[in-house]
């Protein structure tokens, strides 16, 4: 591992080592650029991952204080845990399920395609699918996405069999084991999926792509990476010309450090990224860095989500095998006849007994709840994930009443469901129940949203500096050497799981940064 001096102002500092930060780090290192990655979490590995839901949660999840407000049900069920994302080297790529879908063409230009929707801050992306296609292809190859690059699909488990059977009876056409960044056969030095059933707990076989054991070691082998785990960034600093000059962070020992930088890239996930820009407010940038538009922290999206569980007369044993084992894509398009804009995906999902108890129906008790737990072995499950509406009022702010262990204000996550989100959720619930009834379910259950895993949009990209935070490359409009490198860039959310798009944008951003550095424009 390279070690760069704190005073070395030629390095690129990347904050965060997940899908965005970890990929960007490798891409830059491969081009010969010196990179310092500051990751708040500690290092784990497939050897240290734990096949135990609660213990793994304690090992990987971001548990620093956060608060919630708004009408979303998560604020009631999990008031201190708005998001289920990770604080560990590799970030949430340790926890993600592996679903790797490209956004659809129209999802990059929803304002044009859907028209004006009241209460929604719709905007077209400043980039098109066509422009992103070559980068999507590189991301799929890098991540080893099944059903691309000649990689076979994964074998479906019991949970998928149930979904497939019901979906086909219902008339759905586009149903298969998905496009997954999980090795169906050995590839890129990693083994094939062992069908462990603990995708969310860190993949112990290493078959699922995570920056932890792909991008970061590859970056390290170039000699250009200085990865510093357990380094919590508290502030980005700038000079009197308004260029960022470096960052302040607390190291493993809790000691304050200052790392100089030529460029700073923020990839802390869509809650911490805007929080850091807001925390970095100064006399020159009173509302926080890169916030002349006032959009930093706004347009927070978390995808329309919900789950349907169904009990059958006979065993399913859904816990066996990949957590997200298959998908129905027929509802993913934009079809306003359904009563809402945008679309959603239906993806199998399984929880173990401990998390089933925690998430099936938070706050519930009594005979009905016990009935569902008693039928655990005969239960099948799916997750519903679709496009939600960006709203200016859905936002990350600093909560001065709650402080983290460094004395910094905690982020508050405010979210109000848009009517479109509610209409879509109800439609998705109904369709999910129909799928399982067609497969012979004796009972179905509508599970409310889990804490958010798809946090998006809080530093959106756009064509104009007036109403967006960064340009099509994630470069902030206000500060040329400050970049947004995670899902915060998303202008709108699309229906698809966002990781593939985050990786795609990171590959493209790396190319742009390298060019700008060579041209000495930054």
């Amino acid at each position, binding site marked *: 591992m390279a070690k760069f001096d704190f005073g070395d102002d030629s390095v690129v500092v990347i904050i965060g080592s997940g899908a965005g930060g970890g990929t960007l780090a490798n891409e830059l290192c491969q081009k010969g650029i010196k990179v310092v990655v500051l990751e708040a979490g500690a290092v784990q590995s497939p050897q240290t991952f734990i096949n*135990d839901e609660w213990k793994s949660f304690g090992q990987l999840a971001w548990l620093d204080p956060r608060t919630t407000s708004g009408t979303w049900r998560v604020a009631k069920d999990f008031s201190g845990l708005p998001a289920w994302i990770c604080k560990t080297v590799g970030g949430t790529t340790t926890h993600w399920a592996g679903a790797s879908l490209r956004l659809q063409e129209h999802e990059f230009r929803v304002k044009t395609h859907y028209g004006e929707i009241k209460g929604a801050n719709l905007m077209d992306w400043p980039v098109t699918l066509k422009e992103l296609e070559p980068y999507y292809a590189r991301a799929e190859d890098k991540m080893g996405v099944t059903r691309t690059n000649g990689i076979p*699909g994964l074998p479906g488990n019991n949970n998928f069999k149930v979904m497939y059977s019901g979906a086909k009876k219902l008339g759905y056409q586009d149903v298969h084991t998905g496009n997954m960044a999980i090795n169906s056969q*050995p590839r890129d030095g990693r083994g094939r999926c062992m069908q462990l*059933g603990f995708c969310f707990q860190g993949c112990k076989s290493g078959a699922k792509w995570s920056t932890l054991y792909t991008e970061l070691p590859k970056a390290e082998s170039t000699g250009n990476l200085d990865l510093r785990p357990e380094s919590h960034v508290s502030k980005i600093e700038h000079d009197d010309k308004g260029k960022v000059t470096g960052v302040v962070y607390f190291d493993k020992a809790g000691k304050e450090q200052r790392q100089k930088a030529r460029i700073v890239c923020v990839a802390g996930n869509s809650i911490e990224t805007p929080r850091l820009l807001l925390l970095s407010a100064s006399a020159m940038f009173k509302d926080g860095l890169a916030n002349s538009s006032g959009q930093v922290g706004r347009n927070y999206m978390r995808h329309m989500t919900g789950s349907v569980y169904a009990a059958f007369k006979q065993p399913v044993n859904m*816990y066996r095998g990949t957590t997200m084992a*298959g998908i129905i894509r027929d509802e993913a398009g934009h079809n306003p006849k359904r009563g809402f804009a945008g679309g959603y995906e239906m993806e199998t999902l399984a929880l173990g007994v401990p998390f089933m108890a925690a998430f099936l129906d938070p706050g519930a008790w009594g005979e009905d709840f016990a009935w569902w737990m008693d039928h655990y072995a005969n239960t099948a499950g799916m997750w519903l994930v679709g496009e939600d509406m960006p709203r200016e009022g859905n936002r990350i702010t600093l909560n001065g009443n709650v402080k983290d262990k460094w004395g910094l204000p905690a982020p508050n996550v405010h979210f109000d469901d848009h009517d479109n989100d509610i209409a879509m959720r109800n439609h998705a619930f109904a369709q999910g129940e129909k799928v399982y009834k067609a497969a012979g379910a004796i009972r179905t259950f509508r599970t409310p949203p889990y804490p958010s895993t798809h946090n998006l949009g809080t530093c959106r990209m756009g064509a104009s500096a007036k109403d967006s935070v960064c340009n099509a490359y994630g470069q902030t409009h206000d500060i040329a050497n400050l970049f947004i490198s995670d899902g915060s860039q998303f202008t709108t959310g699309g229906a698809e799981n966002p990781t593939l798009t985050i990786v795609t944008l990171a590959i493209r951003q790396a190319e742009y940064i390298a060019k700008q550095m060579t041209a000495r424009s930054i």
Partner: protein
Amino acid sequence: MRVIAIETMFEGAGCEDASAGEVPKLDLPLARREFLKGSGVLMGTLATGSVLAALAPSTAWAVELKTLSKAEGEAVMKMGRVLFPHKKLPDAVYALLAKDIDAKAAGDAGAAKMIKDGIAALNSAAGGIFAKASEKKRKEIVKGMEGQPFFATVRGQCITSLYDNDMAFKVLGYPGSAWEKGGYITRGFQDLKWLPAPPLEASPKPYLG
């Protein structure tokens, strides 16, 4: 005859050194019961021949309480059964709830008062001993306390105490950790037979090297 001490369960997210929830195979002679220092000891036996008997060296179990009395522990166990009634889960699982509630009380005087007052309220509503009231009466009493901090504490604790241990896993049909057994690639991840197998284009054959 031996006593099985059921060790502290995982008590919440972020607790790193929690036990795995197994029933430790301790050789603790029954005669040592008198030396247990706690204020109460809950005891029972697992039904012989039950699926759980294989998990333990003996069918007898005991849980030591530090702050709550035996009677208070029994009230908590019964409240747990009202909240999450599982005929197939033995008392030993509900005793884990009593142990975890006792641990909360042991660590904090305010919590101890809230818990002891809550149990007293259960008894008072039962006009005597809550644990001995009829099932119907117990349900009414617990329902009547919904929304109170004591109710929320016990209900919340149930989620990890009752459902994150090897006995519950066994009863509900969840084997837990799969890594050390090689996952399910050769152990039935697609063994469901009551529906037809999807075609190969939707679900290709597993790669078996």
